[in-house]
């Protein structure tokens, strides 16, 4: 009961933060408030028992998104441009959409209502079939990776496309080697700050290790490829911030990152095609091994690995693309 009060309190804070983000003209403040927004929404997901989503929000929102937004900010002005004209029209469209959405919400079942349609048809089926067909403790992983494998493949290709899009926008065709060898002082990172350097060197291995734990523990607890990819890239970004981007590129070069992006997508699709080759359907893992349940486990581990590779590659490529572009200015 008391948790519901917390939930309402946090939702109120969330609305206040959102208004603050919209009203602030200083984009730096907006980035910071977005960080707050992410923290609040992660707690709200957590209270709603949606640990997988909350972990995704935490992994992306805590480190990576702030870093990427600051990288984007370094390329532009930090003041929002005044919008020109058509403001009443925009207000009208937004209000009408809001009213329609509020009207639609009247049809929604109450939160936690056992009679809600989702608890009558789909959810019981998944809960019943997961132990029989897939046998992993975390039903979310079973749904995401196996029952709805197509959807996750689609999401993976969305991320893949986003990465390629950012590269098209930011890459400048001057050759990769030249960019990573800029001798500018900025490329030094925070190397002359002793405290972050020591603490960072201590924490980077733990972050990457925790990322791997989340990657391979996704069948049992909250986690999986998306979260693990974001965590591992947070670790590498921390290294890049402290030792400079050039050092991070020596560990994982642009070429290696591009390889990871492609390998992840290929791995996922390849597992799907293996299902066809072994006489069943696309993304049916049961036929991968003689024992259908072992086949499901193998398939889920492989596609989660593919997701993790692509997400890590895309996030780090975007980060390096922003950093390289900022250094050229």
């Amino acid at each position: 009961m008391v948790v519901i009060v917390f939930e309402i309190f946090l939702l109120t804070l969330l609305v206040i933060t959102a208004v603050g983000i919209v009203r602030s003209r200083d984009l730096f403040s907006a980035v910071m408030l977005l960080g707050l927004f992410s923290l609040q929404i992660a707690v709200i997901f957590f209270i709603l028992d949606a640990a997988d989503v909350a972990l995704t929000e935490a992994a992306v929102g805590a480190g990576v998104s702030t870093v990427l937004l600051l990288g984007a900010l370094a390329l532009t002005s930090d003041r929002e441009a005044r919008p020109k004209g058509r403001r009443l029209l925009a207000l009208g469209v937004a209000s009408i959409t809001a009213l329609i959405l509020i009207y639609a919400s009247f049809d929604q079942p109450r939160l936690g209502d056992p009679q809600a349609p989702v608890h009558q048809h789909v959810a019981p089926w998944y809960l019943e079939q997961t132990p029989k067909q897939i046998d992993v403790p975390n039903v979310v992983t079973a749904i995401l990776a196996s029952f709805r494998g197509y959807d996750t493949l689609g999401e993976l290709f969305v991320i893949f496309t986003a990465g390629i899009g950012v590269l098209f926008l930011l890459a400048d065709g001057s050759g990769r080697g030249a960019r990573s060898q800029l001798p500018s002082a900025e490329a030094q990172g925070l190397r002359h700050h002793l405290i972050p350097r020591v603490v960072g060197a201590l924490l980077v291995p733990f972050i990457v290790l925790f990322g791997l734990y989340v990657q391979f523990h996704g069948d049992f607890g909250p986690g999986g490829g998306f979260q693990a990819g974001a965590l591992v890239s947070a670790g590498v970004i921390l290294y890049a911030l402290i030792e400079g981007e050039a050092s991070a590129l020596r560990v994982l070069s642009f070429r290696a990152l591009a390889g990871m992006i492609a390998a992840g997508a290929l791995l996922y699709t390849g597992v799907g095609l293996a299902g066809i080759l072994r006489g069943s359907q696309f993304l049916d893992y049961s036929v991968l091994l003689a024992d259908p349940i072992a086949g499901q486990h193998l398939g889920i581990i492989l596609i989660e690995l593919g997701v993790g590779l692509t997400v890590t590659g895309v996030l780090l490529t975007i980060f390096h693309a922003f950093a390289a572009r900022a250094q050229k200015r």
Partner: protein
Amino acid sequence: MTAGLALDIGSWVLMLAGSFFVFVGGVGALRMPDFYTRMHAASLTDTLGTILILSGVILQAGLTLAAIKLAAIMVFLLLTCPTAAYALANAARLSGLSPRPEQTPGKD
């Protein structure tokens, strides 16, 4: 039974004390006159509140995996919080924000 009760009382005292310090830190961060004093209030009480609250929860968890995770969370927070405070103070100083309240530009 009495050992359990003593454990409960101990963890409650720790968590309540932690809550107090966390709250005081929040008030300090809101009411102190300039950035550096606000940061002082926030970062010090952050560390103490973290130790107290997490120790209280660890006492409740007993010898489980959860307790180990909580201990790890505590260690990592104790490492990262001061580092973040260091980085933040450095950034503010670097940008020319003066630590003397009467020279700090801005409204409040």
